[in-house]
Each structure stands twice: as structure tokens, then as C-alpha cells.
């Protein structure tokens, strides 16, 4: 679905992303990991189309990403960003409805209202829908943005090839909702949506990712597929930490702890 070909981004004299190539297929869940300043967010922004690579090309559904019109792209990919600064008070419902803006002209249709209700249900924020966004906690706000972006992906009962980009989407969530959010994203993959998420928790990545890209200094230095096992050596190399790897109690995969 999205094909990143030898892409670099230079800001001033330094490379933020250097010669990165990767491909994400429809229905695939990939996670991008790496230390702070590795270029993860920059890579995600280039995949979203908001930042143009200095060199290299990105193809989305076979066509150049930079050739897409803003409004067309909005119906094919959605983004959860790392930070939000909301300038005016809006209700939670109004905020989630913005996810439907690419689909209606002036007034939301009945279907838009239904989708907004559904997505708020999924993130369990329906009871907050009349609350002023500015009074929410960090975690609640994150759920609101996820609902909004899920609404932008749209009707999830039908199969559709769309791209969902998540930049640290669970940073403020408690453990239950970290899993719930990623579970929702994973469900979308069954409907041919491709997901790329930046995460910091190796265990979350191991549980949900079909493929993990490890970035450092603007490069992808390691790629880990579903059938490969994480090793302490990889984690040492990427994060410069000592890790111990254990089997999950149910035998389904591995988990990591640090010392």
C-alpha cells in the first residue's frame, strides 16, 4: 500500500532521516521503534504526506504521495499525532465529528453521526461527549483523538484499503487502554487497513506488530519479522540497554524485561 523508497530528510545540515526504504502492505501492522531523536516521527510525517522528503520517493497505492490532493488523501489515510494544542474549547463530540469532515459538505449526514457514536463507544468515551475538551485528562484526550481518527478511517464493517499512522498513540493511556487501542488498530488490519505505529514499549510491539523497524540516527538498522525472535543483542544495539527475554506464560511469544 505504501512504498517508501530510499528517502532522506535533511534539515539544515543534519539528516533527520537517512536513506530509509520500507514497504507496508494492506492489512499489515508495522511498528517503528528506536531511541529519542531516531527520526521515527519524521518518517511518519513523510508517510503522511505533510513533510516532503529531501530525496527519495514515496508511493501510496501505486501513485506518488506528493501528487495526491489534500482532500482526497484525507479519505485514504488518517493520523494520530504525538502532541495536540487545541486553541478553542470544543466538545468531545464536535472533536470526534471532525474525523468525518472529509466526507460531508456542510452538515453531517445520519451515517456520520452513527460512525461518530460507534467510534466513541469503541474508545469508551461516549459518556464524555458533551464535555469540554480542555477539561479532559491526558489519557482521555488521547482516546478522543483515536476516536476521531477511527471515524476518519470510516465505516469499518466494509473492507477498504486505508492507511492509519499512529505516533505514540498510547503514551498517556493506562495499561488496559493501551491494549484496547492497539487491539482496535489490529482489528482494522483484518479489513485491509495498513497500520504504522511509533511505540516505545517493546512488549506492546511484540504483541501486535507483524513487523518491527528499529531506527537509530535516521537509519533503519534492524527489521524484525513476525517469525523472528527478539534478542538481547538487538535491544543492546538499538537502545543501549541490557535486556532479558522470557517466554510468555501461554507460550504465545516472548516478553522483555530490563536490568
Amino acid at each position, binding site marked *: 500500500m505504501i512504498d517508501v523508497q530510499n528517502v532522506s530528510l535533511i534539515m539544515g545540515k543534519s539528516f533527520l532521516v537517512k536513506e530509509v526504504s520500507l514497504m507496508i502492505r494492506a492489512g499489515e501492522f508495522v511498528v517503528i521503534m528506536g531511541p529519542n531523536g531516531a527520526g521515527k516521527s519524521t518518517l511518519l510525517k513523510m508517510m503522511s504526506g505533510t513533510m516532503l522528503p529531501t530525496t527519495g520517493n514515496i508511493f501510496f497505492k501505486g501513485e506518488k504521495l506528493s501528487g495526491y490532493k489534500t482532500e482526497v488523501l484525507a479519505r485514504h489515510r488518517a493520523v494520530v499525532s504525538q502532541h495536540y494544542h487545541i486553541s478553542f474549547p470544543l*466538545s468531545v463530540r*464536535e472533536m470526534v465529528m471532525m474525523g468525518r*469532515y472529509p466526507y460531508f459538505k456542510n452538515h453531517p449526514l445520519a451515517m456520520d453521526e452513527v460512525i461518530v457514536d460507534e467510534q466513541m463507544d469503541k474508545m469508551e468515551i461516549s459518556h464524555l461527549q458533551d464535555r469540554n475538551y480542555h477539561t479532559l485528562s491526558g489519557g482521555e*484526550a488521547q482516546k478522543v483523538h483515536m476516536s476521531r481518527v477511527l471515524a476518519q478511517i470510516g465505516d469499518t464493517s466494509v473492507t477498504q484499503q486505508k492507511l492509519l499512522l499512529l505516533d505514540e498513540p498510547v503514551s498517556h493511556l493506562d495499561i488496559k487502554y493501551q491494549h484496547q487501542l492497539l487491539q482496535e488498530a489490529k482489528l482494522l488490519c483484518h479489513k485491509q487497513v495498513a497500520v504504522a505505529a511509533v511505540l516505545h514499549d517493546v512488549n506492546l510491539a511484540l504483541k501486535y506488530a507483524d513487523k518491527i523497524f528499529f531506527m537509530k540516527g535516521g537509519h533503519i538498522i534492524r527489521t524484525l519479522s513476525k517469525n523472528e525472535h527478539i534478542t538481547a543483542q538487538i535491544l543492546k544495539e538499538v537502545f543501549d540497554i541490557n535486556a532479558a527475554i522470557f517466554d510468555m506464560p501461554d507460550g504465545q511469544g516472548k516478553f522483555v524485561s530490563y536490568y
Partner: protein
Amino acid sequence: MLRTNKFFFPVLIILLLVAFLTAIAFGAVSITVADMFAAVNHWAQGKSPSTIYEGVFLQIRLPRVLLCMITGAVLAVSGVLMQGLFRNPIVEPGLIGTSAGAAFGASVVFVLSAGMGKNIQQLAGPLLVPLFAFAGGLLATYTVYMLAKGNKRMDVTTLLLIGIAVNAVGLSGTGFMSYIARDPQARSITFWNLGTFSGATWMQVGITGITAILVFILAIRYAKQLNTLVLGEEEARYAGVDTEKLKRKIMLYNTAMVSVATAFVGVISFMGLIVPHVMRLLIGSDNKKLLPASMIAGAVLLTLADMGARLLLAPAEIPIGIITSLVGAPVFIILLKRTNMLNTKGGGRD
């Protein structure tokens, strides 16, 4: 607080009617509803007004009140647009140089018109001040826009700072004009900078009215897109909005409205700031509701302010800008304190 009460708009419209009727009725000459009907009746039959009351109503009071309402609506709508664009609730329409440019344009006419030659004076007549004010406003705004744009995407912080700089240039230009002016001219500049509706004519009502209606119809179409700017420009693009085009359109509409209104009545401060702010507190920030609500509330408030201007020191008249600033500034500070309190509550967000 954010769900719109179903009585909100009806109440607003009733307030508008009440403000309209009281503003017509009270003044140096009191006018009754019967006078109004009689005057409209005579006018419709093509007859001239039969009493002085009808004459005052048709030729003085009605155009004045209408111009006042239109100007109030224009300033408030412009405030909503600019606040949305700059993502900042304390932005005023004059911020990007429009008012200061217009004021400079007007001051040029006051001081230099004598030396401009008969032709220009005859050609433009009473439109000379408005034309120069409009040109000044447009020039200043365009300068701000071009400087802020550079060759990349327009950064809102840069735009704001350049707006401040261009405003300063406009002010110093006006200051210089006052300095070289003779006393009566300097007085004209001062009065124009404080705003007044005392010279309202039907032609002014027509021009500002048509501009206001056109721009409002155009602007409301962008309400949805303007909403997405609340999230930030990058997020607005994610939601499918061509933010560069949006910014250009909004700036153009704002300049057209503000310079036309400012051209006829002078500089009226704080309206564009207070009205959208109060409406935001009452119905939230959805521009689809905020634009029409601010339009009506702006018309109501400026009409009331103008009544104050006419009646407080009657038979003398206070420039309306003095009233809007005197009342507006403290209200603004109260609102600001309140908003800060609201924002620091809740906690836990970053």
C-alpha cells in the same frame, strides 16, 4: 455549556429587534412606532415625509442604526474569522494592519486633500476618505501577507509579529500626518480614529450592507474548514483542508469587510474581540454556530454602544470608539482571567 440551547438564536433575534426599535425611538428627537409606519407608508407611495419625525426617521435615524448594525456584525464576524485563523482568542480584526492602514489612508485625505487639485475632489466627493481608507487597509494587509508568506507556508506567529510591525508603521504615518496638520485637520483625524456614526447615509448603508452580505455568505462556507484549524495546521491538512488556500481566502474576506466598514465610520476597537469571545463562552467554538451568533450579537452590542454615544451626554455626542474601548477593555480583562481559570482547571493534560 457547549450544547446550544434551542432558545439561543430566537432570543438573540428578539434582542436584535428590541435594540433596533429602541435605537430608532430614542435620540435628540423621539420617534414613535406610528411615525415609523407612517414614514415607510409615505415612502412606499412615493410621497415625501409629512412630519419632521418621519424625516428624521428616514434620513437620519434609520440609516444610522442600520449602518451601526451592519458594522457591528462585520467587526464581530471578522473577529471570529481572524481568531480562527490565528488560533488565538485575543486577536482583533485590526491585528494584521487593516485598521492602521485604513486610518493612515484617511489621515492623508484630511491633511493633504486641499493640495490634491479640484479634479480628484470633485470626482470622489464624499467618497474620498473611504476610498483612501480602503486603499490603505488593503495595502497594509497585503504587505503583511506578502512579508509573512515568504516563499514557504505562512507561519502564523510570523504573521502576527509582522502585523504588529506594520501596525506600528501605520500609526507613525498617522502620527506624522497629525503632526504636520493644522488644528481642525488634526481634530478630524482624532475623531476618525475614535469612530462615529453621526454622518451615516443610505449610500454607506448600501455599500457596507452588500459587502457584508456577500462576504458572510462566502465565509460561512469555510466554517467547517476553519474548525479544523483548532487542531493546528498540520492536523487540518490531515483532515483534508488545503490550509494555504483557506488562509488566503479568510484574509481576503476579512480585509474587504473591515476596510469597507472602517472607511465609513472610523476605527472602532474591541468589538471584534469581545463579541466572538462572549459567544464562544455561551455556545462553544463551532464556527457554523459561532459566525451567525457573533454576527447578530455584534449588531446588537454596537447599536447599544451607539445609543450610549448619542444619549449619555446629549445633546453632545461621544465618539463611539471611546465607549467600546472604555467598556470593552475591562470586560476583556475579566474574560481573560476567567478563561485562564478554566484552562488551569482539569489538570493532567499537556
